């Protein structure tokens, strides 16, 4: 496992071919608040990568940089080997077509039905007959365990259902990079298990698919991750496999993994 102490400058050395996403010394501030303070890492193709860290450490900000919704103040971001830090919006629009993102609360369009939400990206980029479209939407709904929900209204859905519809929408265009922003937060254990198995299933079904998951659910992280990235104080503190993280003697990592209130991370503010 590499940690910031042993590898403070530059990204971790890639062992695969071109990394799907690469951050190099990325900095981002909002007003006086520095969120990313020289973040560097590489995500390998075909892996499930988990980004973990305490709340407010900039995990969602990191994912928003990956999709170009936010742009860094300095540093370099590469997606599919292409430098995109300050790429024009038209370039980002093309890049995003190969990405699927599941937002924290689903971010569903509440003026549309569930089916229309899932059909939205398909309508934008593909030409299908109404019957083909409806079949595709139903197939995606079945995939996330919500068959027959096409006509349901978004405000009537529970948080868990919203996330599942969000996942179906993220999968609509068969993306090569799937990003999950805290997919199991606020869900009961059964739904969390279902989402975990969906993440794993997607990885097996789609060859070459890379998944990036932001999560606080340590059990999910240790069970599903090919590689874990630990974000701390706006930097990549450590990265490695679940086995390496479990075996780590670093007090910061040990405290985070165990969920202990006492240690170098300090106690969470109640």
């Amino acid at each position, binding site marked *: 496992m590499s940690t910031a102490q042993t590898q403070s400058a530059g990204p971790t050395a890639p062992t695969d071919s071109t990394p799907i996403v690469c951050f190099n010394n990325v900095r981002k501030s909002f007003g006086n608040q520095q969120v990313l303070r020289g973040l560097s890492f590489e995500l390998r193709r075909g892996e499930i990568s988990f980004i973990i860290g305490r709340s407010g450490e900039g995990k969602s900000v990191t994912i928003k940089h990956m999709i170009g919704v936010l742009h860094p103040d300095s540093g370099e971001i590469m997606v599919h080997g292409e430098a995109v830090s300050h790429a024009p919006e038209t370039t980002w629009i093309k890049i995003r077509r190969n990405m699927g993102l599941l937002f924290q609360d689903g971010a569903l369009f509440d003026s549309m039905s569930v089916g229309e939400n899932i059909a939205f990206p398909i309508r934008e980029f593909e030409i299908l007959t109404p019957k083909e479209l409806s079949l595709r939407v139903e197939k995606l709904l079945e995939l996330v365990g919500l068959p027959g929900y096409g006509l349901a209204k978004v405000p009537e859905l529970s948080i868990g259902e919203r996330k599942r519809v969000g996942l179906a929408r993220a999968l609509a*265009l068969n993306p090569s990079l799937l990003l999950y922003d805290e997919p199991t937060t606020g869900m009961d254990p059964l739904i969390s298990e279902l989402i975990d198995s969906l993440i794993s299933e997607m990885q097996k079904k789609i060859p070459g698919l890379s998944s990036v998951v932001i999560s606080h659910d340590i059990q999910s992280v240790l069970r599903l991750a090919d590689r874990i990235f630990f974000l701390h104080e706006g930097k990549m503190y450590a990265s490695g496999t679940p086995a390496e993280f479990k075996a780590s003697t670093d007090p910061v990592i040990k405290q985070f993994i165990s969920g202990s209130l006492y240690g170098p991370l300090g106690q969470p503010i109640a």
Partner: protein
Amino acid sequence: MMEFALRGLESLGGLVRGQIIGLGRFTILLREIFFWMLRPPLRLQLIFKQFEFVGNKSLSIVLLSSLFTGAVLGLQIGKIFGIFKAEGLMGAATGKALALELAPVMCGFIVTGRAGAAMAAEIATMRVNEQLDAMEAMGVSPVSYLIVPRVIASTLMMPLLSAIFLTLGLVGCYILGVIMFRVDTSVFVAQLQWLVWVSDIHKGMVKALVFGFILSTIACFKGFHARGGAKGVGEATTQAVVASLLTILIVDFFISLVQMKG
């Protein structure tokens, strides 16, 4: 004393800086609006939906307010003109005021209050709930999908609403003139034709077109840059309405100046 003055200067500087940043963001949004207006896809279905929202749903308010605006304007003008025994001119004077100023400005106010506020609130809610981020993440420009149809529909519907306002306003004035001031219909129509020219109606339509563009771009801009939760949505909506109304009044003055010289 010196410290107090410095603090004052600092807050003034902050205010000016904020305004300049806001103006810069607005200019960037305007550039994006024109960029996506001239690019496919032309979202006809969404544009027609906005025609219905801006036009059809504002119609009942426009009909009612135009009748009463025309009537009250006729009442005041008729009262003054009555002193000179010139009540016959009340239709012409009301028509001139309605065609040049009142119809486009009042329609601008009505559409701002009804449709503009709703546009700002809807887009602001989508912003704070990450729906705009989701749209961008799917490779769909929110400017192309949400803002351009609203701007096109508002800009094109405003002259139509203004024409309806003018017509109904004149009907209101006519009814009042005939009932209260015993004005003869032929005199009313003759004076109207003599004083209100086609060019006056054209000038009013141009103003309505400009106001439609202004109110929709400001409403969408305020919604697009909303921050925070429900409070942010409320602030964006209020700011959209206030900024649109003030801009309409200021721009109206300058367009009138240009039209008078032209």
